[in-house]
């Protein structure tokens, strides 16, 4: 085995909070050898990020690290800041999840790349700029001589993540810590970034610690895997071993967490419930009082869609493809044009007051279970809010009873209904959001990426809940997602969108087994490897 680069022994991380100490990492042992890729896998809260933060001395002010972490024989825990700075940023570098916020928006990227090199290595401005261009070339930014003078906002998410990688490579590090580097990116971009990292590893013999919750990526990308759960490493091994022969039940559960099952399409003669014809949505940005150039965004470009009773249409596409905008346009939540019919009513011109009658039949569940629940209301108040509008005759007690029923239906303990959203986990919050939608007994529910912010094992539960509710209440779903595995498990009809247009549509089997368009094939390849 190659020389050990990073040797972690008995590492503990504790956070002191008003409610007592939180033991985030509980005495873990991990080794990284030169040139290898170690993936740390676990669900949110497993302590995988905090482990690396502790080594880099980046813990929040209430965190404490104990134990030992030796980098090339030098102890990192408790190292004074001056010495630590010689290692981090030079020998160990890090890239983060969010490429949108990790670059300073006011500096040109060339400058952001060059500055640390001028500081740490004493390069002249000219030499640093040349090196920056070289690095941009290395991470495959097209036309690096020109791009070096771009501002971050001029680049896409994937390009920014490449710049971040270039920054991390600037001082020829030995170890790169990548903390969920592709989670915020679309699947096709994600595949490109991973390819780039794999290539860099080959070319410059970089060791990579790859933190991820996505087992699909880990399998394709790493040499060894460490599975973490609630601050402990439950299993380590080579990729082949872990995936072929998982020992620990938790690992087995994670591997089995891929949502399964299929949905049968509704009968051919099922009535059309929601129909959009020639739906078109444009946004205008900028302009206004002081003039300035107006920017027209054609978010949804003349789209036709028909949702039958009991059907689930999966709308897939990358970010910016207009899939969420389409969902909202069908619910008349934004200003679109086109003919929208709900049942027998034409709602394309309905006013706000007229729409209120229909609102209870058409509900929406959002992606972010943290943002979609008002933080100052109790779960019970949130769930019953719609009843205030649509069944104002109900007494407080009746509403409470309905809340209890809805809580039980989505698998939450009704005793928790007086708690506030921040006291629930992500999955539980999404259940609250679903309870809020179904308490009104709707016919159509638009699900806007309802599982994207959740861990795999929780995703699976939510998918099963949605499926049960559909069977029980005869709901029709419009399921918007970029996650093809979830879409396959839930939908019977799929619409693939790109740039506001539908590029392909058809039954689930047809799209997954025999995609006709190259874009669809590309999506499949990126998602399923």
């Amino acid at each position: 085995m190659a020389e050990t680069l990073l040797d972690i022994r008995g590492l503990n991380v504790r956070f002191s909070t008003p409610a007592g100490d939180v033991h985030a990492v509980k005495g873990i042992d991990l080794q990284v050898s030169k040139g290898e890729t170690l993936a740390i896998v676990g669900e949110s809260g497993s302590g995988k990020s905090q482990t690396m933060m502790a080594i880099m001395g980046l813990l929040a002010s209430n965190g404490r690290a104990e134990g030992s972490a030796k980098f090339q024989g030098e102890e990192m825990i408790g190292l004074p800041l001056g010495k630590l700075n010689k290692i981090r940023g030079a020998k160990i570098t890090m890239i983060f999840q969010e490429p949108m916020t990790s670059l300073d928006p006011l500096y040109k990227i060339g400058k952001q790349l060059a500055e640390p090199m001028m500081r740490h290595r004493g390069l002249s401005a000219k030499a640093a700029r040349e090196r920056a261009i070289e690095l941009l070339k290395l991470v495959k930014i097209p036309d690096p001589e020109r791009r070096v003078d771009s501002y971050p906002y001029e680049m896409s998410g994937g390009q920014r993540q490449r710049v971040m990688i270039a920054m991390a490579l600037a001082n020829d590090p030995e170890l790169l810590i990548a903390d969920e580097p592709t989670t915020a990116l679309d699947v096709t971009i994600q595949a490109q970034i991973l390819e780039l990292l794999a290539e860099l590893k080959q070319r410059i013999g970089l060791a990579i610690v790859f933190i991820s919750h996505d087992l699909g990526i880990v399998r394709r990308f790493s040499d060894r895997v460490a599975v973490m759960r609630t601050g402990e490493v439950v299993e380590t091994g080579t990729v082949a071993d872990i995936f072929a022969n998982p020992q620990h039940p938790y690992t087995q559960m994670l591997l089995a967490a891929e949502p399964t099952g299929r949905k049968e399409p509704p009968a051919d003669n099922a009535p059309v419930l929601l129909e959009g014809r020639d739906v078109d949505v444009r946004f205008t940005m900028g302009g206004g009082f002081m003039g300035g150039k107006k920017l027209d965004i054609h978010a949804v470009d003349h789209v036709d869609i028909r949702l039958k009773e009991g059907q689930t249409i999966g709308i897939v596409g990358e970010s910016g493809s207009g899939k969420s905008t389409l969902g909202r346009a069908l619910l008349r939540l934004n200003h679109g044009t086109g003919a929208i019919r709900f049942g027998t009513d034409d709602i394309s011109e309905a006013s706000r007051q007229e729409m209120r009658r229909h609102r209870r039949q058409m509900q929406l569940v959002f992606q972010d279970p943290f943002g979609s629940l008002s933080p100052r209301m109790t779960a019970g108040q949130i769930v019953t809010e719609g009843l205030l509008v649509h069944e104002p005759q109900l007494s407080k007690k009746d509403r409470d009873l309905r809340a209890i029923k809805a809580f039980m239906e989505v698998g939450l303990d009704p005793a928790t209904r007086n708690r506030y959203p921040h006291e629930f986990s992500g999955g539980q919050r999404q259940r609250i959001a679903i309870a809020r939608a179904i308490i009104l007994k709707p016919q159509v529910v638009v699900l806007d990426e309802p599982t994207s912010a959740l861990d795999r094992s929780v995703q699976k539960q939510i998918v099963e809940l949605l499926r049960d509710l559909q069977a029980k209440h005869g709901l029709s779903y419009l399921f918007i997602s970029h996650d093809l595995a979830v879409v396959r498990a839930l939908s019977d009809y799929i619409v693939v969108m790109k740039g506001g247009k539908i590029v392909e549509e058809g039954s689930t089997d047809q799209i997954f087994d025999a995609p006709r368009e190259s874009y669809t094939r590309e999506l499949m390849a990126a998602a399923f490897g």
Partner: protein
Amino acid sequence: MSEMTQALSEPTVAVHGTSLWAMARHRFVRNKAAMASLVVLIVVAVFSFGGTWVYPHKYDQIFSSYVAVPPSLDPYPLEDTLEQVMQTAVERARLRLDSFDADGTSYTARISSDKPVDPRATRYLDRPDEFEGAEIVSTLDDGKTVEVKGNINGQYFPFGTDRNGRDLLPRIMVGGQVSITVGLLATFVSLIIGVTYGAVSGYVGGRVDNVMMRFVEILYSLPFMFFVIMLVVFFGRHFVLIFAAIGAIEWLDMARIVRGQTLSLKRREFVEAAHAMGLSNWQIIRRHVIPNTIGPVVVFVTVLVPKVILLESFLSFLGLGVQEPMTSWGSLIAEGTTGMQAVPWLLIYPAAFFVVTLFALNFIGDGLRDALDPKDR
């Protein structure tokens, strides 16, 4: 339904969650400076509002015998001045004072005249604030000499009196009432107007927002002092006018803060969720927007209350505030500054109350900010 009620009656015993408010309260209670300030503030408020009920002197009661007497824990009149006072009173009655004895709470005086003494002359003896209940106990010498007994009317002035002979202590109490009331009322006025205006402007957005915020900017550009002087010139000096004027200016800041908050809240998903649920705009503003702006608003309010008290003091200092004999801390301080060397207590006591209150309010504001926004710690 009754069956369902039966079946559901068991889980209806719900656990109570900790709201964000409860968490903030918990953090606030642990902040010692803020809690101490809260106690101080309560003490000052009880002193100001409760004190006038208990304290024997009225704020506008004039003690002509005790003009500008320094603060003392002993009762006035002081014993060695009594004979002089009696002498003056007796001379007013065109009588002679033969002897005078004082023993703490009562006195005995022997008064004589060339003619028999009219018993009604005792009224003259009760005239000064120092004496009361004069009574002839014995008559000698065919009525030409009388022995009079009466009580010494002891008065306490722990904070001294002002140059009109009014006790400073109740004046500070009343001044506190006015200052605190103006502070709270003006803040309340600006809170109501500002929050509603800002929330509507931010939530409705577009052209309405544009017009509403330009209006705010026009008001901003009016010089405040000019505005107040105009009001006072047209309507005369009045208590209501003060907080109307201050409230009418201070809501502008509040409206801007709330509007900014609303703009960012408007894009939050729970607002869109409420919209999808069919709630009306006003319901969304009331149920979702305003409760979530309360954090920064509460912090701003705690800064605003001392600011308003200062403003009122400033106006009173310039003579544009409340009308005599009503007073406020600002007017008291203004009066105090005119005789700083001769009668320093007139400045020291009101200023001390004022400063302590402002400190307490600012500490509470700090504590609330930390409690409501626990980031960066």
